[in-house]
């Protein structure tokens, strides 16, 4: 069935259309095409032609021309607009030309993908293209799984090395003498999915790229940087910060689009008085026969891994109940072993699978072909993600449908009431701060290990004065560098890249094993494993369930047996912040501001068993897992209890404002410290143990801290001023997800109360603490 017929059927079916609060139709576009540029080597053209590509989209040609001309370029176009061709074309051309014309100095390329999984996906496509060329080529992923003999081959004669920022940071750059020929010949650096390089992680990656450029300069090469991104609010600015140089932005999408229909579906109220709505997972199950079927392909996006597993189980059981083949319904999420992922991707491309339930793991550029219908089971949390997920539907030139099922959460309900918000809101801007002193300093250690610094050399586009001062400090006070004449030599026995983590996450996963066969079933990062691999947890894989017998926290293993249960499990997470030390304090009116160190403890004290379908709670179990602990930096805003009482914060309809204000301040802080909201943690307490008063604590969500809350504290006046400005400028009446939060969450007077609190702070005179 084609999409217009599906839309027709949905519109005429009251069980669906009765709950649709809004239809939006984005018109089709015919696309804008261009021929291959004349300079493209005939063999490269033939390789693309063999894959059915006769013409280019206009943006592909524009990007390829810019790359060929040596311009650092950032392509920011929607999902499925053929971004990889934008870099593969100039790279393949350079490889074929150099191999035929100057065989002694072959052109090399480095491809960076944000994760290991993604790079393994992309190398398959690349290998196929390279295989069609008349010259011998070598391309491979270089990561922790690469066997030693392949590593040597790649180092010595890899034409394209496909890797991720972690490996570049820890494995390749610090060992550049082993990669001499590669760096000498490096002509292109491709960085894909640059919109994921944000916040602290992105700030680190920008510095890793500074180190890369420095090493290239040492070997006499100056590669062209080619970036690809989802549509973001600030491609030029983000590209320039990340690459340390102005970039040419290519964002005029030339790929053809069919008409796309968007349906906003708000599940019916079950209990109007309590505002209780049907669960979106339940609704997705109920609507599946309307939205998915054997004659077209549908993707369901779930907000979490466990939701994806619950939903795929429902969909498979539903299909069996209707006498359909449940094998044509699959799930896809992070944590699956690579072979399983590859298989689902293949089956989606071939059409073998018609329905897939995925997490945002399928939001990035994994090639599964284009589908017909995308069902978002809950708002994914950002405008960019919404359009990335919706964009998974839409075969070239054909119509597509995206359905948002609104959850009962405040964000989703706001969108249910104001669907136009998504279409007029600007795309999120990506914020990074490569010059953050903690990040810059740590990265300069790594850079100094790789090559001695010369005085006045600088470090990318980092402020010269800061670089000089940091070098001098490392040499004269920190005992890391030895200065001799105008050179600073690394002089410490450590390997600094090992101690500098790009995103504070643990690279070693926890593996779930079949307790009998000891075969790996799936894997998870350690923090998530606490919540999902604890003893008694039900873990779904492709709709089959496993029950965890034993969780070996130290050994990073969990042992499970296959069992069908009539329930799934949900762990409860609680987080506490204890103040360790306070360094500075300032008073403002009824407020006091503090900066210091805190200890953040995350525990998973228990889990609940929840029955499938009915969602009835059928038991809870206590857990005795070690807490995840972190010392970090924080700042706290404390309100005198009398003032809190006067503002009505302690109870009643205004009490929700304090929590809303906490979230708003966290967001406003990101305006001044250039990070992601997730780089900062926030806890808003009505009465904190330490201060015995209402307290908002904003902390660096990175062990040891990276100076984020320190900067926010120094800019507190601006942070609170910006928060007020956001509230004042926001067009909503009493709160929305874009400012303090929707009224459901912050109360009907939340916005007004928060405004009053902010004004009383900003208008009070500052007193020394």
């Amino acid at each position, binding site marked *: 069935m084609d999409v217009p017929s599906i839309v027709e059927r949905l519109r005429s079916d009251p069980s669906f259309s009765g709950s649709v609060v809004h239809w939006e139709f984005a018109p089709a576009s015919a696309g804008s095409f261009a021929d291959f540029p004349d300079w493209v080597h005939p063999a490269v053209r033939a390789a693309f032609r063999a894959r059915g590509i006769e013409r280019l989209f206009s943006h592909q040609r524009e990007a390829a021309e810019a790359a060929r001309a040596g311009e650092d370029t950032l392509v920011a176009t929607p999902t499925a607009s053929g971004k990889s061709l934008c870099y593969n074309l100039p790279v393949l051309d350079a490889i074929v030309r150099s191999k035929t014309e100057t065989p002694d100095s072959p052109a090399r390329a480095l491809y960076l993908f944000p994760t290991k999984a993604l790079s393994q996906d992309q190398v398959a496509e690349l290998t196929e293209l390279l295989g069609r060329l008349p010259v011998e080529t070598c391309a491979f992923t270089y990561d922790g799984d690469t066997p030693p003999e392949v590593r040597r081959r790649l180092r010595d004669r890899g034409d394209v090395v496909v890797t991720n920022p972690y490996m570049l940071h820890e494995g390749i750059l*610090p*060992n*550049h*003498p*082993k990669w*001499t020929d590669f760096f000498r010949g490096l002509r292109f650096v491709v960085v894909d999915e640059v919109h994921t390089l944000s916040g602290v992680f992105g700030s680190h990656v920008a510095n890793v790229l500074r180190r890369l450029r420095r090493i290239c300069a040492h070997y006499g090469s100056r590669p062209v940087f080619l970036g690809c991104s989802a549509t973001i*609010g*600030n491609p030029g*600015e983000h590209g320039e910060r990340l690459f340390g140089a102005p970039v040419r932005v290519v964002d005029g999408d030339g790929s053809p689009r069919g008409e796309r229909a968007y349906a906003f579906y708000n599940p019916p109220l079950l209990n109007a008085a309590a505002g209780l709505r049907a669960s979106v997972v339940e609704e997705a199950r109920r609507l599946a026969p309307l939205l998915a079927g054997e004659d077209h392909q549908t993707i369901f996006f779930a907000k979490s891994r466990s939701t994806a597993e619950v939903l795929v189980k429902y969909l498979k059981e539903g299909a069996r109940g209707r006498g359909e083949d449940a094998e044509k319904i699959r799930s896809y999420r992070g944590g699956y072993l690579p072979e399983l992922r590859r298989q689902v991707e293949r089956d989606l491309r071939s059409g073998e699978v018609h329905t897939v339930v995925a997490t945002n793991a399928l939001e990035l550029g994994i090639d599964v072909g284009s589908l017909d219908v995308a069902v978002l089971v809950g708002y994914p949390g950002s405008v960019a993600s919404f359009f990335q997920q919706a964009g998974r539907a839409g075969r070239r030139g054909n119509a597509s449908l995206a359905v948002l099922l609104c959850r009962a959460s405040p964000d989703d309900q706001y969108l249910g009431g104001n669907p136009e918000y998504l279409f007029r809101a*600007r795309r999120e*801007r990506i*914020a990074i*701060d490569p*010059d*953050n*002193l903690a990040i810059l*300093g740590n990265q300069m250690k790594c850079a*100094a*290990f*790789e*090559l*001695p610094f010369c005085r006045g050399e600088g470090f990318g586009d980092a402020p010269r004065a*800061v670089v000089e*001062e*940091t070098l001098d*400090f*490392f040499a004269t*006070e*920190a*005992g890391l560098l*030895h200065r*001799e004449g105008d050179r600073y*030599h*690394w*002089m*410490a*026995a*450590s*390997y600094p890249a090992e101690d500098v983590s790009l995103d504070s996450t643990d690279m070693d996963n926890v593996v779930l094993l079949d307790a009998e066969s000891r075969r790996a079933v799936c894997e998870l990062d350690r923090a998530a494993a606490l919540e999902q691999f604890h003893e008694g947890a039900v873990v779904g894989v492709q709709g089959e369930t496993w029950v965890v017998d034993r969780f070996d926290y130290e050994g990073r293993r969990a042992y499970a047996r296959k069992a069908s249960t009539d329930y799934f499990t949900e762990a409860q997470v609680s987080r506490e912040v204890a103040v360790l030390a306070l360094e500075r304090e300032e008073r403002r009116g009824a407020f006091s501001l503090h900066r210091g160190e805190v200890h953040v403890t995350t525990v998973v004290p228990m889990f609940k068993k929840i029955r499938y379908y009915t969602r009835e709670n059928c038991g809870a179990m206590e857990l005795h897992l070690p807490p995840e602990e972190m010392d970090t930096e924080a700042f706290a805003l404390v309100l005198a209890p009398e003032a809190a009482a006067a503002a009505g914060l302690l109870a009643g309809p205004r009490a929700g404002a304090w929590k809303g204000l906490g979230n708003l301040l966290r*967001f406003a802080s*990101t*305006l*001044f*410290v*250039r990070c992601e909201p997730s780089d900062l943690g926030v806890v808003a307490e009505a009465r904190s143990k330490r201060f015995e008063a209402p307290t908002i604590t904003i902390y660096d969500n990175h062990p040891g801290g990276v*100076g984020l809350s320190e*900067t926010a*504290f*120094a*800019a507190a*006046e*601006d942070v609170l*001023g*910006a928060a007020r*400005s*956001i509230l004042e*400028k*926001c067009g909503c009446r009493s709160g929305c997800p*874009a*400012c303090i939060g929707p009224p459901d969450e912050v109360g009907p007077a939340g916005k007004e109360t928060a405004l009053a609190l902010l004004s009383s702070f900003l208008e009070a005179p500052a007193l020394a603490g």
Partner: protein
Amino acid sequence: MGALRDKLRRLHGAPAGRGALTPLPDEGLRVRLRRRFGTSEPAEGPSPLRVTRVPLLSRHGEVALEKVLCADPARLAAEARCPSLAEVRVRDLVFLDTETTSLGGGAGVLVFLAGIARVEGEEVVLRQHFLPSPGGERAFLEAVREELGAAGAFVTFCGKSFDRHRLEDRFRFHSLPSLFGSERHLDLVHPFRRNVRGVPDHRLRTLEGRLLGLRRVDDLPGERAPQAYFDHLAGRGGEIERVFEHNRLDVLSLVALTAVLGAASPPDRVTAEPGGDP
């Protein structure tokens, strides 16, 4: 900060976009660096070449160094599983041990001492090339290359996995050609690992004790060599002499172990009679 506020005001709607400049807190940068990275307390050293001549008649531990002359190249080749070693005369062997700024690898690790010995006349001549400061690295490496260039074969302990790579990385760093392309490299750790049983491990220290009857007195442990060098560079040169001594003993042990390995009796029999035939 006024400019920042203005920028925010210019932005329409909400949420306001990010991207304003990070304001630096008003504390001095130096104060923030100290707090972030901590501090560490802050001076003529050894010459770039030290030559030590050890008579072949002397003993290392309980083994007479002259025994190395009796080492049978064919036997060494067989024990090392490297046939081309059979063509190398003992007087063309070059015994090599390096001291580095880290026990790991990577571009930031320097070789600061290369102990190189060969049998000349009736002596073992040990030349210890020293890097007085990192600025002189190229000259240091060229001297080491010249010294090693005429080698018939290298003899090391763990050199195939360590010393060789540290030197090669430095040569490449300075665009000097490779030295270790040939297969003539006798890394003693492998044959001793295969042949010697009944020892807790196969570290050089252990083998020296068991096979050579060598007891080191007041030896500076190898892992403290990097710090000794850093102290030397910082003008606190106390222990650098001990690194020279440590390296000297290491290289002489290579000579004596080669004698043991190349002797007519296999090394495991030597285990029973430490020191062998007096």
